[in-house]
Protein backbone atom coordinates (compact mmCIF):
# COMPACT_ATOMS: atom_id res chain seq x y z
CA UNK A 1 0.00 0.00 0.00
CA UNK A 2 1.64 3.19 -1.08
CA UNK A 3 2.11 6.11 1.27
CA UNK A 4 -0.22 9.02 0.71
CA UNK A 5 1.46 12.35 1.39
CA UNK A 6 -1.39 14.66 0.44
CA UNK A 7 -5.09 13.88 0.49
CA UNK A 8 -7.35 16.43 -1.20
CA UNK A 9 -11.09 16.26 -0.52
CA UNK A 10 -13.52 18.31 -2.61
CA UNK A 11 -11.31 21.36 -2.78
CA UNK A 12 -12.94 24.32 -4.52
CA UNK A 13 -11.49 27.75 -5.11
CA UNK A 14 -13.35 30.95 -5.89
CA UNK A 15 -11.99 34.21 -7.24
CA UNK A 16 -14.80 36.30 -5.78
CA UNK A 17 -17.88 34.79 -7.41
CA UNK A 18 -16.03 32.89 -10.12
CA UNK A 19 -15.36 29.22 -9.38
CA UNK A 20 -11.89 28.38 -10.63
CA UNK A 21 -11.40 24.95 -9.03
CA UNK A 22 -14.32 22.54 -8.83
CA UNK A 23 -14.37 19.96 -6.04
CA UNK A 24 -10.90 18.56 -6.64
CA UNK A 25 -10.27 15.23 -4.92
CA UNK A 26 -7.00 13.41 -5.27
CA UNK A 27 -4.22 11.56 -3.49
CA UNK A 28 -0.58 12.49 -3.93
CA UNK A 29 1.77 9.60 -3.16
CA UNK A 30 4.91 10.16 -1.09
CA UNK A 31 8.37 10.12 -2.64
CA UNK A 32 7.06 10.13 -6.16
CA UNK A 33 6.83 12.72 -8.86
CA UNK A 34 3.27 13.71 -9.67
CA UNK A 35 2.70 15.79 -12.77
CA UNK A 36 -0.26 18.13 -13.24
CA UNK A 37 -1.07 18.62 -16.90
CA UNK A 38 -3.78 20.38 -18.84
CA UNK A 39 -4.37 23.24 -21.27
CA UNK A 40 -3.71 26.87 -20.33
CA UNK A 41 -6.16 28.20 -17.79
CA UNK A 42 -7.30 24.80 -16.59
CA UNK A 43 -6.39 25.55 -12.98
CA UNK A 44 -3.33 23.39 -12.51
CA UNK A 45 -1.12 26.25 -11.29
CA UNK A 46 -3.92 27.60 -9.12
CA UNK A 47 -4.28 24.16 -7.57
CA UNK A 48 -0.53 23.90 -7.01
CA UNK A 49 -0.53 27.22 -5.19
CA UNK A 50 -3.26 25.92 -2.90
CA UNK A 51 -0.91 23.30 -1.56
CA UNK A 52 1.40 25.82 0.08
CA UNK A 53 -1.35 28.37 0.58
CA UNK A 54 0.20 30.93 -1.72
CA UNK A 55 -3.30 31.82 -2.92
CA UNK A 56 -3.83 33.35 0.53
CA UNK A 57 -1.95 36.34 -0.84
CA UNK A 58 -4.79 37.14 -3.24
CA UNK A 59 -7.51 38.96 -1.31
CA UNK A 60 -10.48 37.90 -3.46
CA UNK A 61 -9.76 34.16 -3.11
CA UNK A 62 -11.88 31.85 -0.97
CA UNK A 63 -11.40 28.11 -0.59
CA UNK A 64 -13.68 25.28 0.52
CA UNK A 65 -12.86 21.64 1.06
CA UNK A 66 -9.90 19.95 2.66
CA UNK A 67 -6.21 19.70 1.88
CA UNK A 68 -4.71 17.12 4.22
CA UNK A 69 -0.94 16.94 4.38
CA UNK A 70 0.08 13.88 6.41
CA UNK A 71 -3.39 13.88 7.87
CA UNK A 72 -3.49 17.55 8.89
CA UNK A 73 -5.82 19.96 7.11
CA UNK A 74 -3.52 22.84 6.22
CA UNK A 75 -6.51 25.18 5.89
CA UNK A 76 -7.51 24.63 9.48
CA UNK A 77 -7.73 27.83 11.49
CA UNK A 78 -5.15 26.70 14.01
CA UNK A 79 -2.48 25.97 11.45
CA UNK A 80 0.41 28.44 11.07
CA UNK A 81 0.84 29.11 7.40
CA UNK A 82 4.50 30.04 7.89
CA UNK A 83 5.28 26.53 9.12
CA UNK A 84 3.47 25.01 6.18
CA UNK A 85 5.66 26.88 3.77
CA UNK A 86 8.76 25.59 5.50
CA UNK A 87 7.52 22.07 4.96
CA UNK A 88 6.23 22.63 1.45
CA UNK A 89 8.63 24.48 -0.77
CA UNK A 90 7.98 26.05 -4.16
CA UNK A 91 10.00 26.67 -7.30
CA UNK A 92 8.46 29.25 -9.60
CA UNK A 93 8.10 29.41 -13.34
CA UNK A 94 10.46 32.29 -13.69
CA UNK A 95 13.49 32.02 -11.44
CA UNK A 96 13.41 34.69 -8.74
CA UNK A 97 16.72 34.85 -6.89
CA UNK A 98 17.12 37.66 -4.40
CA UNK A 99 19.42 40.51 -5.46
CA UNK A 100 22.00 39.19 -3.02
CA UNK A 101 25.01 36.92 -3.27
CA UNK A 102 24.65 33.24 -4.13
CA UNK A 103 25.57 32.33 -0.56
CA UNK A 104 23.05 34.73 0.91
CA UNK A 105 20.30 33.39 -1.33
CA UNK A 106 20.75 29.87 -0.03
CA UNK A 107 21.34 30.99 3.54
CA UNK A 108 18.15 33.08 3.47
CA UNK A 109 15.82 30.26 4.51
CA UNK A 110 17.96 28.90 7.37
CA UNK A 111 18.59 32.44 8.63
CA UNK A 112 14.86 33.09 8.72
CA UNK A 113 14.56 30.07 10.96
CA UNK A 114 17.03 31.56 13.38
CA UNK A 115 20.21 29.80 12.35
CA UNK A 116 23.22 32.06 12.93
CA UNK A 117 26.20 29.75 13.25
CA UNK A 118 28.45 30.35 10.26
CA UNK A 119 29.81 26.82 10.13
CA UNK A 120 26.34 25.33 10.03
CA UNK A 121 25.23 27.79 7.39
CA UNK A 122 28.29 26.99 5.28
CA UNK A 123 27.41 23.33 5.49
CA UNK A 124 23.80 23.84 4.52
CA UNK A 125 24.82 26.04 1.58
CA UNK A 126 27.18 23.37 0.30
CA UNK A 127 24.73 20.52 0.80
CA UNK A 128 21.92 22.36 -0.92
CA UNK A 129 24.05 23.38 -3.88
CA UNK A 130 25.31 19.80 -4.21
CA UNK A 131 21.77 18.45 -4.14
CA UNK A 132 20.86 20.85 -6.88
CA UNK A 133 23.88 19.63 -8.86
CA UNK A 134 25.36 23.09 -9.06
CA UNK A 135 28.02 23.09 -6.35
CA UNK A 136 31.01 22.62 -8.63
CA UNK A 137 29.90 25.43 -10.90
CA UNK A 138 29.38 27.91 -8.10
CA UNK A 139 31.65 26.92 -5.24
CA UNK A 140 34.30 29.47 -6.17
CA UNK A 141 31.92 32.35 -6.50
CA UNK A 142 29.57 32.11 -3.61
CA UNK A 143 29.94 35.81 -2.91
CA UNK A 144 29.03 36.87 -6.43
CA UNK A 145 25.60 38.27 -7.10
CA UNK A 146 23.00 35.66 -7.95
CA UNK A 147 21.73 37.95 -10.69
CA UNK A 148 24.86 37.32 -12.72
CA UNK A 149 24.00 33.68 -13.33
CA UNK A 150 22.39 32.30 -16.47
CA UNK A 151 18.69 31.43 -16.51
CA UNK A 152 19.28 27.74 -16.00
CA UNK A 153 21.76 28.34 -13.20
CA UNK A 154 19.39 30.75 -11.49
CA UNK A 155 16.62 28.19 -11.55
CA UNK A 156 18.85 25.52 -10.06
CA UNK A 157 19.91 28.09 -7.47
CA UNK A 158 16.25 28.61 -6.61
CA UNK A 159 15.85 24.87 -6.24
CA UNK A 160 18.87 24.77 -3.93
CA UNK A 161 17.40 27.67 -1.97
CA UNK A 162 14.18 25.70 -1.50
CA UNK A 163 16.12 22.61 -0.45
CA UNK A 164 18.03 24.58 2.17
CA UNK A 165 15.00 24.71 4.47
CA UNK A 166 14.59 20.90 4.30
CA UNK A 167 11.04 20.68 3.06
CA UNK A 168 9.16 17.39 2.69
CA UNK A 169 7.31 18.39 -0.43
CA UNK A 170 8.55 20.41 -3.37
CA UNK A 171 6.09 22.15 -5.66
CA UNK A 172 7.35 23.13 -9.10
CA UNK A 173 5.34 25.44 -11.30
CA UNK A 174 6.58 24.88 -14.88
CA UNK A 175 10.18 25.15 -13.66
CA UNK A 176 11.80 24.67 -17.03
CA UNK A 177 9.39 26.51 -19.32
CA UNK A 178 11.62 29.57 -19.53
CA UNK A 179 14.79 27.57 -20.14
CA UNK A 180 16.69 26.17 -23.11
CA UNK A 181 16.62 22.40 -23.78
CA UNK A 182 19.94 21.65 -22.09
CA UNK A 183 19.00 23.45 -18.90
CA UNK A 184 15.61 21.78 -19.07
CA UNK A 185 17.11 18.33 -19.16
CA UNK A 186 19.36 19.22 -16.24
CA UNK A 187 16.31 20.22 -14.24
CA UNK A 188 14.52 17.01 -15.19
CA UNK A 189 17.52 14.96 -14.08
CA UNK A 190 17.45 16.84 -10.82
CA UNK A 191 13.77 16.09 -10.28
CA UNK A 192 14.52 12.43 -10.80
CA UNK A 193 17.29 12.44 -8.18
CA UNK A 194 15.33 14.47 -5.67
CA UNK A 195 12.28 12.23 -5.51
CA UNK A 196 14.15 9.73 -3.34
CA UNK A 197 14.07 12.21 -0.51
CA UNK A 198 11.16 14.46 -1.37
CA UNK A 199 7.62 14.30 -2.69
CA UNK A 200 7.48 16.34 -5.87
CA UNK A 201 4.50 17.85 -7.63
CA UNK A 202 5.27 19.46 -10.95
CA UNK A 203 3.00 21.51 -13.17
CA UNK A 204 3.92 21.32 -16.80
CA UNK A 205 2.36 22.20 -20.12
CA UNK A 206 4.92 20.00 -21.83
CA UNK A 207 3.46 16.52 -22.10
CA UNK A 208 6.68 14.87 -23.09
CA UNK A 209 8.24 16.29 -19.95
CA UNK A 210 5.37 14.89 -17.88
CA UNK A 211 5.78 11.51 -19.49
CA UNK A 212 9.56 11.55 -18.97
CA UNK A 213 9.78 12.72 -15.41
CA UNK A 214 6.68 11.70 -13.50
CA UNK A 215 5.37 8.55 -11.84
CA UNK A 216 1.77 9.75 -11.62
CA UNK A 217 -0.11 12.25 -13.72
CA UNK A 218 -3.25 14.27 -13.07
CA UNK A 219 -5.11 15.82 -15.98
CA UNK A 220 -6.95 19.06 -15.30
CA UNK A 221 -9.47 20.72 -17.56
CA UNK A 222 -11.54 23.86 -16.91
CA UNK A 223 -11.01 23.71 -13.16
CA UNK A 224 -11.86 20.04 -12.80
CA UNK A 225 -9.68 17.02 -12.21
CA UNK A 226 -10.64 14.81 -15.13
CA UNK A 227 -8.40 11.86 -14.52
CA UNK A 228 -5.43 10.80 -12.44
CA UNK A 229 -3.31 7.69 -12.50
CA UNK A 230 0.07 6.14 -13.15
CA UNK A 231 1.80 8.14 -15.86
CA UNK A 232 2.19 5.10 -18.06
CA UNK A 233 -1.52 4.34 -17.91
CA UNK A 234 -2.58 7.94 -18.54
CA UNK A 235 -0.44 8.23 -21.60
CA UNK A 236 -1.06 4.80 -23.12
CA UNK A 237 -4.60 3.92 -22.10
CA UNK A 238 -6.42 6.97 -20.71
CA UNK A 239 -9.84 6.18 -19.28
CA UNK A 240 -11.60 9.42 -20.28
CA UNK A 241 -12.04 10.71 -23.77
CA UNK A 242 -11.08 14.25 -22.78
CA UNK A 243 -7.76 12.97 -21.51
CA UNK A 244 -7.17 11.11 -24.72
CA UNK A 245 -8.04 14.16 -26.81
CA UNK A 246 -5.60 16.34 -24.89
CA UNK A 247 -2.79 13.81 -25.00
CA UNK A 248 -3.13 13.21 -28.68
CA UNK A 249 -3.06 16.92 -29.29
CA UNK A 250 -6.61 17.36 -30.45
CA UNK A 251 -6.84 20.48 -28.31
CA UNK A 252 -4.78 22.42 -25.77
Amino acid at each position, binding site marked *: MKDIKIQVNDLSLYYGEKKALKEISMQVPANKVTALIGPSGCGKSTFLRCINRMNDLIPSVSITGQMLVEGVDIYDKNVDV*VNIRKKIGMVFQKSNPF*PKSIYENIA*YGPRINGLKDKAQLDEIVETSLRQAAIWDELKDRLDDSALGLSGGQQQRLCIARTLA*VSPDIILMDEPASALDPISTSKIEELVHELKEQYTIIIVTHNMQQAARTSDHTAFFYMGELIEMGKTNDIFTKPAKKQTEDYITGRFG
Partner: protein
Amino acid sequence: MDKVISEFENPFFGSKRRGEEIKGKLVIGLTQLAVFLIIAILFIILGIIVYQGREKFSWEFISSFPTDGMTKGGIFPALIGTFILVVVMSIAAVPFGTITAIYLTEYASENSKFAAAVRFSIRTLAVVPSIIFGLFGLGFFIQFLGGGIDNVFNGGQLRWGQPNIIWASLTMALLTLPVIIVSVEEALKTIPRELREASLALGATKWQTIRKVVFPGSISGIMTGTILAVSRGAGEVAPILFTGAAYYLATLPKSLSDQFMNLGYHVYIMSTQSSDVEKTMPIQFATTLVLLILTLSLNLVAVLIRSRIRRKSK
Protein backbone atom coordinates in the same frame (compact mmCIF):
# COMPACT_ATOMS: atom_id res chain seq x y z
CA MET B 1 4.25 49.43 -70.10
CA ASP B 2 5.02 51.61 -67.15
CA LYS B 3 3.78 55.11 -67.56
CA VAL B 4 6.23 57.72 -66.50
CA ILE B 5 4.57 59.72 -63.75
CA SER B 6 5.14 63.41 -64.10
CA GLU B 7 6.42 65.56 -61.32
CA PHE B 8 2.99 66.93 -60.71
CA GLU B 9 1.29 63.61 -60.12
CA ASN B 10 3.89 61.67 -58.18
CA PRO B 11 3.38 62.16 -54.45
CA PHE B 12 7.10 61.80 -53.86
CA PHE B 13 7.73 65.11 -55.55
CA GLY B 14 5.99 68.42 -55.41
CA SER B 15 5.60 71.53 -53.37
CA LYS B 16 3.38 69.89 -50.76
CA ARG B 17 6.29 67.82 -49.54
CA ARG B 18 8.59 70.77 -49.51
CA GLY B 19 6.10 72.63 -47.31
CA GLU B 20 6.06 69.76 -44.83
CA GLU B 21 9.83 69.67 -44.81
CA ILE B 22 10.06 73.35 -44.01
CA LYS B 23 7.56 72.99 -41.18
CA GLY B 24 9.57 70.14 -39.76
CA LYS B 25 12.78 72.10 -39.86
CA LEU B 26 11.06 75.05 -38.21
CA VAL B 27 9.87 72.95 -35.31
CA ILE B 28 13.31 71.47 -34.79
CA GLY B 29 14.80 74.94 -34.94
CA LEU B 30 12.39 76.31 -32.37
CA THR B 31 13.09 73.40 -30.03
CA GLN B 32 16.81 73.94 -30.34
CA LEU B 33 16.32 77.64 -29.67
CA ALA B 34 14.30 76.89 -26.56
CA VAL B 35 16.96 74.50 -25.22
CA PHE B 36 19.65 77.04 -25.97
CA LEU B 37 17.73 79.77 -24.17
CA ILE B 38 17.20 77.64 -21.09
CA ILE B 39 20.87 76.73 -20.88
CA ALA B 40 21.86 80.31 -21.60
CA ILE B 41 19.63 81.69 -18.84
CA LEU B 42 21.02 79.14 -16.43
CA PHE B 43 24.56 80.09 -17.29
CA ILE B 44 23.77 83.79 -17.10
CA ILE B 45 22.35 83.40 -13.61
CA LEU B 46 25.24 81.23 -12.50
CA GLY B 47 27.64 83.63 -14.17
CA ILE B 48 26.25 86.67 -12.36
CA ILE B 49 26.38 84.89 -9.04
CA VAL B 50 29.93 83.70 -9.55
CA TYR B 51 31.10 87.04 -10.92
CA GLN B 52 29.54 89.17 -8.21
CA GLY B 53 30.41 86.79 -5.46
CA ARG B 54 33.93 85.85 -6.35
CA GLU B 55 35.46 88.82 -4.60
CA LYS B 56 34.14 87.74 -1.24
CA PHE B 57 34.21 84.00 -1.79
CA SER B 58 37.12 82.54 0.12
CA TRP B 59 37.99 80.12 2.84
CA GLU B 60 37.98 83.00 5.30
CA PHE B 61 34.49 83.89 4.21
CA ILE B 62 33.18 80.45 4.95
CA SER B 63 34.96 80.08 8.23
CA SER B 64 34.50 83.43 9.96
CA PHE B 65 31.69 85.26 11.65
CA PRO B 66 30.03 88.37 10.25
CA THR B 67 31.39 91.64 11.60
CA ASP B 68 30.66 95.36 11.50
CA GLY B 69 26.90 95.05 11.53
CA MET B 70 27.23 92.23 8.99
CA THR B 71 28.75 94.43 6.33
CA LYS B 72 32.02 92.58 6.59
CA GLY B 73 33.23 89.19 7.67
CA GLY B 74 31.95 85.74 6.80
CA ILE B 75 28.99 83.46 7.01
CA PHE B 76 30.25 80.62 9.11
CA PRO B 77 27.35 80.57 11.58
CA ALA B 78 24.82 80.64 8.73
CA LEU B 79 26.57 77.69 7.13
CA ILE B 80 26.58 75.70 10.33
CA GLY B 81 22.99 76.69 11.06
CA THR B 82 21.81 75.47 7.66
CA PHE B 83 23.71 72.25 8.14
CA ILE B 84 22.22 71.58 11.58
CA LEU B 85 18.75 72.39 10.28
CA VAL B 86 19.03 69.96 7.43
CA VAL B 87 20.42 67.18 9.61
CA VAL B 88 17.77 67.45 12.32
CA MET B 89 15.08 67.75 9.65
CA SER B 90 16.29 64.53 8.01
CA ILE B 91 16.42 62.66 11.29
CA ALA B 92 12.80 63.59 11.86
CA ALA B 93 11.46 63.18 8.34
CA VAL B 94 13.29 60.22 6.79
CA PRO B 95 12.33 57.41 9.20
CA PHE B 96 8.79 58.70 9.49
CA GLY B 97 8.43 59.02 5.72
CA THR B 98 9.97 55.61 5.10
CA ILE B 99 7.64 53.87 7.55
CA THR B 100 4.65 55.61 5.99
CA ALA B 101 5.70 54.50 2.52
CA ILE B 102 6.22 50.93 3.69
CA TYR B 103 2.80 50.95 5.30
CA LEU B 104 1.13 52.25 2.16
CA THR B 105 2.84 49.76 -0.13
CA GLU B 106 3.03 46.61 1.97
CA TYR B 107 0.29 46.67 4.57
CA ALA B 108 -2.60 48.80 3.41
CA SER B 109 -5.32 46.85 1.61
CA GLU B 110 -6.80 48.06 -1.64
CA ASN B 111 -10.02 49.37 -0.11
CA SER B 112 -8.53 50.78 3.05
CA LYS B 113 -10.16 54.10 3.82
CA PHE B 114 -7.35 54.95 6.17
CA ALA B 115 -4.75 54.50 3.45
CA ALA B 116 -6.81 56.60 1.07
CA ALA B 117 -6.95 59.35 3.69
CA VAL B 118 -3.19 59.17 4.19
CA ARG B 119 -2.54 59.43 0.45
CA PHE B 120 -4.90 62.37 0.15
CA SER B 121 -3.17 64.13 3.03
CA ILE B 122 0.23 63.63 1.45
CA ARG B 123 -0.92 65.06 -1.86
CA THR B 124 -2.47 68.05 -0.14
CA LEU B 125 0.59 68.65 1.99
CA ALA B 126 2.73 68.69 -1.12
CA VAL B 127 1.02 71.73 -2.57
CA VAL B 128 0.65 73.86 0.54
CA PRO B 129 2.64 77.11 0.21
CA SER B 130 5.72 77.09 2.39
CA ILE B 131 4.72 80.17 4.36
CA ILE B 132 1.72 78.25 5.67
CA PHE B 133 4.11 75.71 7.11
CA GLY B 134 5.85 78.59 8.84
CA LEU B 135 2.60 79.78 10.36
CA PHE B 136 1.72 76.24 11.39
CA GLY B 137 5.12 75.86 12.99
CA LEU B 138 4.57 79.05 14.95
CA GLY B 139 1.09 78.19 16.08
CA PHE B 140 1.40 74.49 16.74
CA PHE B 141 5.02 73.74 17.53
CA ILE B 142 6.08 76.94 19.24
CA GLN B 143 2.98 78.24 20.94
CA PHE B 144 1.02 75.05 21.56
CA LEU B 145 3.65 72.34 22.05
CA GLY B 146 6.50 74.55 23.21
CA GLY B 147 4.28 76.67 25.40
CA GLY B 148 2.62 73.56 26.74
CA ILE B 149 5.96 71.99 27.63
CA ASP B 150 7.02 75.18 29.37
CA ASN B 151 3.83 75.25 31.41
CA VAL B 152 4.06 71.64 32.45
CA PHE B 153 7.79 71.24 33.02
CA ASN B 154 9.27 74.66 33.57
CA GLY B 155 6.52 76.22 35.60
CA GLY B 156 5.61 78.70 32.90
CA GLN B 157 9.16 79.86 32.35
CA LEU B 158 9.80 80.51 28.68
CA ARG B 159 12.28 78.05 27.24
CA TRP B 160 10.67 75.85 24.63
CA GLY B 161 7.84 78.16 23.67
CA GLN B 162 9.97 80.21 21.30
CA PRO B 163 11.70 79.83 17.94
CA ASN B 164 14.58 77.36 17.93
CA ILE B 165 16.30 74.61 15.97
CA ILE B 166 13.97 71.79 16.87
CA TRP B 167 10.77 73.58 15.95
CA ALA B 168 12.21 74.92 12.71
CA SER B 169 13.53 71.48 11.77
CA LEU B 170 10.21 69.81 12.51
CA THR B 171 8.43 72.43 10.43
CA MET B 172 10.83 71.83 7.57
CA ALA B 173 10.37 68.08 8.02
CA LEU B 174 6.64 68.46 7.44
CA LEU B 175 7.38 70.38 4.27
CA THR B 176 9.65 67.72 2.83
CA LEU B 177 7.71 64.68 4.08
CA PRO B 178 5.62 64.20 0.91
CA VAL B 179 8.69 64.13 -1.28
CA ILE B 180 10.34 61.46 0.86
CA ILE B 181 7.23 59.30 1.01
CA VAL B 182 6.72 59.43 -2.75
CA SER B 183 10.35 58.58 -3.50
CA VAL B 184 10.38 55.61 -1.15
CA GLU B 185 7.04 54.40 -2.46
CA GLU B 186 8.34 54.54 -6.02
CA ALA B 187 11.36 52.47 -5.06
CA LEU B 188 9.23 49.93 -3.23
CA LYS B 189 6.97 49.54 -6.25
CA THR B 190 9.94 48.57 -8.41
CA ILE B 191 10.56 45.51 -6.26
CA PRO B 192 8.83 42.74 -8.19
CA ARG B 193 6.11 40.72 -6.55
CA GLU B 194 8.09 37.55 -7.34
CA LEU B 195 10.75 38.42 -4.79
CA ARG B 196 8.21 38.79 -2.02
CA GLU B 197 6.62 35.50 -3.11
CA ALA B 198 10.00 33.77 -3.08
CA SER B 199 10.59 34.90 0.48
CA LEU B 200 7.15 33.90 1.71
CA ALA B 201 7.40 30.53 -0.05
CA LEU B 202 10.53 29.83 2.01
CA GLY B 203 8.54 30.20 5.20
CA ALA B 204 9.27 33.82 6.04
CA THR B 205 6.72 36.00 7.77
CA LYS B 206 5.57 39.21 6.17
CA TRP B 207 7.66 41.27 8.55
CA GLN B 208 10.76 39.18 7.82
CA THR B 209 10.13 39.63 4.12
CA ILE B 210 9.90 43.39 4.54
CA ARG B 211 13.01 43.55 6.68
CA LYS B 212 15.19 41.34 4.50
CA VAL B 213 13.93 41.76 0.96
CA VAL B 214 11.74 44.82 0.61
CA PHE B 215 13.55 47.30 2.82
CA PRO B 216 17.02 46.73 1.32
CA GLY B 217 15.47 47.30 -2.08
CA SER B 218 14.01 50.61 -0.97
CA ILE B 219 17.31 52.14 0.09
CA SER B 220 17.84 53.83 -3.27
CA GLY B 221 14.42 55.43 -2.90
CA ILE B 222 15.25 56.57 0.60
CA MET B 223 18.45 58.13 -0.69
CA THR B 224 16.63 59.87 -3.54
CA GLY B 225 13.97 61.15 -1.20
CA THR B 226 16.53 62.37 1.27
CA ILE B 227 18.47 64.21 -1.44
CA LEU B 228 15.36 65.96 -2.65
CA ALA B 229 14.31 66.77 0.89
CA VAL B 230 17.71 68.14 1.83
CA SER B 231 17.95 70.23 -1.33
CA ARG B 232 14.62 71.78 -0.53
CA GLY B 233 15.32 72.17 3.14
CA ALA B 234 18.63 73.91 2.57
CA GLY B 235 17.07 76.59 0.44
CA GLU B 236 13.58 77.22 1.80
CA VAL B 237 13.26 80.31 3.96
CA ALA B 238 9.55 80.84 4.61
CA PRO B 239 9.09 77.92 7.01
CA ILE B 240 11.92 79.09 9.24
CA LEU B 241 11.06 82.79 9.26
CA PHE B 242 9.09 82.59 12.47
CA THR B 243 10.22 79.25 13.76
CA GLY B 244 13.91 79.55 14.39
CA ALA B 245 16.01 81.64 12.04
CA ALA B 246 17.84 84.53 13.63
CA TYR B 247 19.14 87.78 12.23
CA TYR B 248 22.44 87.62 14.00
CA LEU B 249 23.94 85.37 16.62
CA ALA B 250 27.32 86.01 18.16
CA THR B 251 27.91 82.36 18.91
CA LEU B 252 27.05 79.02 17.36
CA PRO B 253 23.93 77.29 18.69
CA LYS B 254 24.69 74.91 21.53
CA SER B 255 21.45 73.03 21.94
CA LEU B 256 18.20 72.27 20.16
CA SER B 257 16.51 75.04 22.07
CA ASP B 258 18.78 77.68 20.56
CA GLN B 259 18.09 79.75 17.50
CA PHE B 260 20.31 79.51 14.45
CA MET B 261 21.43 81.45 11.41
CA ASN B 262 20.68 80.20 7.93
CA LEU B 263 22.16 80.79 4.46
CA GLY B 264 18.90 81.45 2.66
CA TYR B 265 17.62 83.66 5.43
CA HIS B 266 20.94 85.49 5.46
CA VAL B 267 20.58 86.44 1.81
CA TYR B 268 17.07 87.67 2.52
CA ILE B 269 18.01 89.94 5.40
CA MET B 270 21.16 91.15 3.65
CA SER B 271 19.14 92.26 0.68
CA THR B 272 16.26 93.83 2.59
CA GLN B 273 17.25 94.80 6.08
CA SER B 274 20.95 95.41 6.32
CA SER B 275 22.27 98.87 7.09
CA ASP B 276 23.85 99.25 3.67
CA VAL B 277 22.40 97.08 0.93
CA GLU B 278 24.84 98.25 -1.73
CA LYS B 279 27.85 97.48 0.39
CA THR B 280 26.63 94.02 1.28
CA MET B 281 25.90 93.04 -2.35
CA PRO B 282 29.09 91.01 -2.68
CA ILE B 283 28.27 89.21 0.55
CA GLN B 284 24.80 88.40 -0.74
CA PHE B 285 26.12 86.93 -3.94
CA ALA B 286 28.88 85.04 -2.21
CA THR B 287 26.36 83.59 0.24
CA THR B 288 24.19 82.49 -2.65
CA LEU B 289 27.20 80.89 -4.24
CA VAL B 290 27.97 78.99 -1.05
CA LEU B 291 24.37 77.80 -0.84
CA LEU B 292 24.49 76.61 -4.44
CA ILE B 293 27.74 74.75 -3.93
CA LEU B 294 26.42 73.18 -0.73
CA THR B 295 23.25 71.94 -2.40
CA LEU B 296 25.15 70.69 -5.41
CA SER B 297 27.70 68.75 -3.38
CA LEU B 298 25.00 67.22 -1.21
CA ASN B 299 23.25 66.05 -4.36
CA LEU B 300 26.50 64.70 -5.76
CA VAL B 301 27.34 62.74 -2.61
CA ALA B 302 23.89 61.17 -2.52
CA VAL B 303 24.01 60.30 -6.23
CA LEU B 304 27.38 58.63 -5.70
CA ILE B 305 26.07 56.64 -2.75
CA ARG B 306 23.06 55.58 -4.76
CA SER B 307 25.10 54.43 -7.74
CA ARG B 308 27.42 52.48 -5.46
CA ILE B 309 24.43 50.68 -3.95
CA ARG B 310 23.13 49.95 -7.44
CA ARG B 311 26.44 48.50 -8.52
CA LYS B 312 26.64 46.29 -5.47
CA SER B 313 23.28 44.72 -6.13
CA LYS B 314 24.04 43.96 -9.78
